[in-house]
């Protein structure tokens, strides 16, 4: 598997940049994924609301929440999610939250 190298950290990811080992996720890893994969220089409190919700949901159910749940939990409109994460809920938000790549046509 390839690695993301950033400053002193070396993070193993899959070929699409999703974490190879979701248990290795930390807030610093999220910042690096956001920067390298999503081009986000910083994660604002709004980003964290979404990221933390996805993580909690994933820990509990073992899968990614649908975007409806992300909007409900954060109070954001659908378009706001796309503004925050340019690659969208699956390839953007879920990736920063350290989930493995969702299955299917995404």
């Amino acid at each position: 598997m390839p690695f993301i190298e950033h400053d002193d950290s070396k993070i193993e990811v899959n070929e699409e940049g999703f974490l190879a080992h979701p248990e290795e996720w930390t807030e610093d890893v999220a910042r690096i994924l956001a920067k390298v994969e999503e081009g986000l220089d910083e994660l604002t409190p709004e980003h964290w609301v979404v990221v933390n919700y996805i993580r909690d949901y994933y820990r509990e159910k073992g899968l990614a929440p649908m975007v409806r749940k992300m909007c409900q939990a954060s109070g954001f409109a659908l378009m706001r999610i796309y503004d925050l994460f340019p690659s969208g809920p699956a390839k953007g938000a879920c990736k920063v939250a350290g989930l493995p790549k969702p299955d299917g046509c995404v």
Partner: protein
Amino acid sequence: MRRRKPGPSGIVAAPLETKSQDNARRDNIASVAQGRLKTYETGAPNARRFLDLLSRRITRSLAVSLTACVHCGMCAESCHYFLARPDDPTMTPVYKADQIRRVFKRHLDWTGRVVPWWVKASAPENDEDLNRLKNVVFGACSACRRCTLNCPMGVDTALLVRFTRGLLTELGIVPEGVFNVSRDQWETGNQMAVSEADYLETLEWMRDEVRAELADPTVEIPVDRPDCDVLYTINPREIKFDPRSIAHAAKIFHVAGEKWTLPKWGWDQTNFGLFSGDDRLGAFVAGNVYEAAARLRAGRIVISECGHGYRSTRWEGYDWASRDQTAPTESVVVTLGRYLAEGRIRVDASRNPVPVTFHDSCNIARSGDLVEEPRRVLRQVCLDFREMTPNGRENFCCTGGGGLLSMAEYRPLRLEVARIKADQLRATGAGQVCTMCHNCVDGLADVIRHYKIDMKVVQVLDLVSRALMAPR
């Protein structure tokens, strides 16, 4: 970031065993227990089983494609893998087809039995050989059928690829992504394991969004309503990650005064049976849609913008499900074209001023024969529509076809050969590329990002929705 680069041969050496299959066996999930979903067995006589299956499943059209090739090389020039790696003979369609052709010759064709060295006949001897075959037919071909269209002998290489994929799927020798999606379709009836509650909740949410947008409380997104003219079926990613397209469709149906519904079961028009080569999965998923239409006495099945879903449900599915389907099946783009032609909706093209080019999805144009229909719509809803070259049936794949988007292990090669698509997109100078396939949306977005092209991907529903004028 470091990515794995393919070597002198583009064939990627992805591993044989996967974690998902272990989990499916451990949990003894229903589709595995019932033998519908196959997992890989170490120590089983897999090579022998492969040959048995090959002999049993061979058909006349396969035999033609296996024997008619004269190795002229026309297919090489039509394949984006070879065009992007012109020094790599393993990228030619004929090389990929020869990997199954040599087995056919060894076991079924008399030439291979008499003079195997002369006709290069040989058979897989062990699981590693089968895994290598997997990496050819799943990892180095997007099953786009451009070589098929350009073969003077009528050899359907993509048919051979799908056939070989089907034999390997039967042995559980498949990429993890294909296994996972097949599992979810078998287990839940949809490829993203969306629950019924989640499905209904998202539809209600989108209904409320459209009500707010049109300031019209009578907007509905009906579910399981009988005797409608249109049964609308969608791609599960529209529920799970991108419901904007459902809102667009609902808005347009409402303005057009359509009598429509979605089914509560049988709403997933996508079909991984097409990609895995498993006709039984194909029959199960497409059959769910046909049964929903029959149960609700729908006038026609309308398929949202999805390439492989269109091909599966509109063309291949009847065969897989052995179904004598009477209600017609059409793409939503055809429905939109009819609304425009009949004056049921009015549009203002000036709301789409950014130049738009159109990317024909392989499964829709080349394998589904819809070429003019999307163009007729686009010319009415955009100010500046321009063709890319080549286009229509000769268009190049988005690079994510054949299920490749769900197989991360083959991504580095996919993006390397996407150079052809990138050049084609860039040459149009358009700010937007429109496609009527969700898979192409992601395939193109990957190409655009990787090759740093200043272009946005949109779908026909986006553009029509934006141009839609309020009813008189």
